[in-house]
């Protein structure tokens, strides 16, 4: 008959306190990412159970009904909030509340264990939204509390355990586990693409888009978010040449610019010009564009360590379209690093006949602008002279460069050019292209980023959303040439950035300002640390993993070889750790160590010590076996007995030395066996 374990005791106060701590540290990082009512409900439930005794909350029967009702109500609320349920964000929100509900009703340590598992998974979900250093740092306490909660759930109820001991024990185990965690992080195979669905399907998009309407870029310019960072091989180009080409927009409906639907393949025209090489670390933006300085002369290739032995060059991350965009096949969903080459220039050869045809389309509206362009063209001697006169007109007339232009109505370009005359780069680019097209010159809008700030810490360039820009391109004599009408209105925007170009009092994003206060310096240092973090940790993907393999000379390794290697290392880790534990705890005091050494030697020589046998009895038995060593053996036995059982007096040291000397001067096991008197 087997004795069943005693029925599980209910969760004690200690259990509840630990579980509450765990649930709260798991919930806390999600606060900023969830709708307020969800955040408050989930944590409120936890706090309610912790602060009020369960009986006071509601009688047991009522709770049995109340909790499922609450779970369903929250599910409906989340469905209403998000508009859908079976997607990542609503599921995270639901799990968040569910953990609170589970905590409210948890009664047995077994439910406590389930709660620990749920809370652990909830801790992971914050990384959907944020993988910064801060996010990593606030996860560590959660892991510590996890260990503490597990230890508390394990302990026999009523055992007095404080907060300190379980936390310290967990910290020790974490330190022991870190080598293993590091190894797994490096060797565990990463996926190049998602297993299911589109991982960022419901994630926020940021940065540029494939449409441009008045107000879109100026809105973007209010953001300090990093678009990408650049390491230059050599000196960075001067500010006026930092045009990072992005989406090219050629279709205008009178209000909004759009990209042409079909993107033909393009070719790199001239290879002979001097090029610069740089590495771009693009933040995930869920858009397909990779950015390059005008004009790109290579496809972006993933960053690999320079290795002469590998002949096959890695597959490019994107293709080049005929209008010189770098388009990836899938949206950039994770931090991506690529090497890019560009020849700094403002012109390139047209791709073909269709270039002129596609870029002359005019909307039916904005007749004043069209009439004005035709009149101006009639007075100009050539296309170039016409363009110069348009730019001159922008410069001379009372146009104002501002982030907060008045709203436009009706024919927006007419309204802007002849009435308000206050606008941001998209207004100028849009109006400029329309004027050129009206005069019969093929032209289009190019969006992207203009500028970039060199971070002296780490010596790389940061390009932020606030550097977003729109400019124009005109096809003259078979060559596309860049014109930036914004430069005609506010030259400092191009030379010194947004902060210098905008009038006083405009809401310039903090980091786009020019004054280098200590705070901004600090922010730059912090950005440098973040950059390393992004590159080394968050950006550790398939490519980077292959780099590690290559560095280790293991790229040819078969999967089973890797598995065997990992198994060997894990085994070595376990043995090393056990050895360490043994060393720390199993160290004998010196006298005992000497005595054990003697015991081992005599045992090998055929005289093991009986477990009942004291030092003197054993020594006596040994002297009978080896009479020739009797004096030595007696001395060892007596000294050890004195050291172990006698008073700790002045002769301690002397005895210890005698013991050690005696054991050392005894012959080894083989010699003893040979001289045994039996």
């Amino acid at each position, binding site marked *: 008959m*087997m*004795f069943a*374990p005693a029925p599980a005791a209910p969760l004690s106060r200690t259990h509840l306190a630990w579980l509450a701590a765990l649930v709260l540290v798991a919930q806390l990082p999600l606060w900023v990412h969830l709708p307020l009512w969800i955040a408050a409900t989930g944590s409120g439930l936890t706090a309610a159970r912790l602060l009020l005794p369960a009986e006071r909350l509601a009688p047991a029967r009522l709770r049995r009904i109340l909790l499922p009702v609450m779970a369903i109500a929250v599910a409906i609320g989340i469905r209403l909030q998000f508009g859908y349920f079976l997607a*990542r964000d609503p599921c995270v929100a639901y799990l968040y509340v569910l953990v609170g509900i589970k905590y409210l009703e948890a009664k047995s340590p*077994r439910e406590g*264990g*389930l709660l*620990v*598992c749920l809370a*652990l*998974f909830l*801790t*992971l979900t914050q*990384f*959907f939204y944020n993988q910064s250093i801060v*996010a*990593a740092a606030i*996860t560590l306490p959660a*892991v510590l509390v*996890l*260990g503490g909660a*597990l*230890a508390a*759930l*394990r*302990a*026999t109820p009523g055992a007095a355990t404080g907060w300190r001991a379980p936390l310290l*024990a*967990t910290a020790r*185990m*974490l330190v*022991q*586990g870190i080598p*293993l*965690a*590091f190894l*797994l*992080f490096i060797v*565990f195979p*990463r*996926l190049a693409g*998602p*297993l*299911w669905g589109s*991982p960022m399907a419901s994630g926020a998009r940021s940065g540029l888009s494939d449409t441009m309407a008045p107000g879109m870029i100026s809105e973007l310019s209010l953001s300090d978010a990093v678009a990408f960072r650049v390491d230059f091989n050599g000196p960075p180009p001067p500010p006026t040449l930092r045009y990072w080409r992005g989406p090219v927009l050629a279709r205008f409906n009178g209000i909004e610019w759009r990209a042409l639907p079909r993107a033909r393949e393009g070719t790199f025209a001239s290879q002979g010009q001097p090029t610069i090489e740089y590495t771009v670390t693009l933040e995930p933006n869920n858009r397909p564009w990779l950015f390059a300085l005008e004009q790109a002369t290579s496809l972006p290739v993933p960053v690999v360590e320079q290795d002469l032995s590998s002949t096959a060059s890695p597959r490019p991350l994107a293709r080049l379209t005929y209008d010189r965009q770098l388009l990836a096949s899938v949206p950039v*969903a*994770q931090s991506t690093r690529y090497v890019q080459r560009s020849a700094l220039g403002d012109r390139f050869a047209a791709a073909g006949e269709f270039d002129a045809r596609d870029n002359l389309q005019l909307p039916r509206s904005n007749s004043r602008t069209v009439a004005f362009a035709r009149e101006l063209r009639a007075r100009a001697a050539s296309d170039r002279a016409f363009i110069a006169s348009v730019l001159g007109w922008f410069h001379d007339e009372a146009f104002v460069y501002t982030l907060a232009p008045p709203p436009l109505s009706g024919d927006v370009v007419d309204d802007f050019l002849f009435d308000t005359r206050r606008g941001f780069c998209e207004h100028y680019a849009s109006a400029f292209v329309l004027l050129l097209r009206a005069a019969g010159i093929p032209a289009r809008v190019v969006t992207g980023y203009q500028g970039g700030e060199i971070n002296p810490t780490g010596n790389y360039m940061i390009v932020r959303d606030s550097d977003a820009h729109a400019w124009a391109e005109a096809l003259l004599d078979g060559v596309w040439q860049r014109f930036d009408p914004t430069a005609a209105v506010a030259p400092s925007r191009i030379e010194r950035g947004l902060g210098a170009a905008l009038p006083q009092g405009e809401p310039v994003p903090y980091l786009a300002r020019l004054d280098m206060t200590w705070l901004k310096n600090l922010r730059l240092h912090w950005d440098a640390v973040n950059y390393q973090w992004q590159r080394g*940790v*968050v*950006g*550790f993907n398939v490519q980077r993993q292959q780099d590690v393999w290559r560095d280790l000379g293991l790229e040819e390794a078969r999967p089973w070889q890797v598995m065997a290697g990992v198994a060997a290392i894990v085994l070595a880790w*376990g043995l090393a*750790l*056990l050895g360490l*534990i*043994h060393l*720390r*705890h*199993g160290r004998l005091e010196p006298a005992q160590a000497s005595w054990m050494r003697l015991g081992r030697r005599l045992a090998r020589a055929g005289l093991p010590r009986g*477990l009942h046998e004291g030092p003197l009895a054993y020594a006596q038995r040994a002297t009978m076996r080896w009479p020739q060593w009797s004096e030595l053996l007696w001395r060892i036995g007596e000294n050890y007995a004195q050291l172990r059982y006698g008073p700790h007096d002045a002769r301690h040291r002397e005895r210890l030395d005698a013991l050690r000397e005696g054991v050392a001067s005894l012959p080894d096991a083989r010699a003893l066996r040979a001289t045994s008197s039996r």
Partner: protein
Amino acid sequence: MSSALHPGTAGPASWLRRWRQRLWRAAPVDRAPVVLRHRRVYILPTRRGLALMATLATMLVTSMNYALALGHALTFLVTGLVAAGLLQTWRNLAGLAVSPLAAGEGFAGSEIAFTLSLANAGAARYGIVVAPRDGPEVTVDLAAGATRPVQVGVLAPRRGRVALGRITLSTDFPLGLWRGWAYVHFPLAGIAYPAPESPPPPLPTGIDGSDALRRARAADAELAGLRDYHPGDAQNRIAWKAVARGAGWYTKQFEGAGGGGTLALFWSDLPPGLDGEARLARLCAWILAAERETRTFSLQLPGSDLPPGSGAIHRRAALTALALFAPERGS
């Protein structure tokens, strides 16, 4: 019982037996002290450990799908914690030395207490559960370098020898995610006396046949004299006044041969209608009653004979004879 190991025999059967013994320790052939080493210590995840591993697997798949580098890091960090917990659980059990100290005695239907000694040469150990096969488990902590006795009770269903059986030492310290255990099977047996008949029947008449005399003795026993104390004499017969005076240890002797008459507890005198176990139960009850009333008694069973006597040693000898009585051998 000791059908366990026949070192002489060879072949697959013996090989199988050896391995079964090594894995399950089915035969009581362990010799003291048993030090728990890697050969004896087993470890498997607990239910909670399995749940946490399933969670970790889910987290890993999620991290892979969403390419969460920090998700991987968190998953592996907790994996490291679980792995370190495994080693700590192992360490908590490995190196523990177990020896048998004493086997107890009791009546059938109650628990027989066995005492084991746990010796810890290393660092402190916590939450070591010592569980006999048929009895409640005991949880102990051991300080660094401590040796302590642990008493476990084994339920005795019937009279006779009660083997301690296989002991399971287990622990799920420190996180409750792993359970490490080891079997120890000492050839240690206690004794279960027959359960006394209840309510106890009246004592039979003594050898002299005079019930009245016995009553008189019980009412006002006359002290006949003192003799030297022998270990095993009943406590209520010790001359405590003499002890208190510091005169030494004496045992009171009452008037009449053996004080109030020696009881003759004879198997053959019992009513013929009683079956064997019922006879033993009645004899057991009588022995206890005689001891309570500090009377000498003799016991006669088929095949064994106990001369008249009294005291703890005599009582134990009598009860043991009852416990081990095998009717097949008898008359």
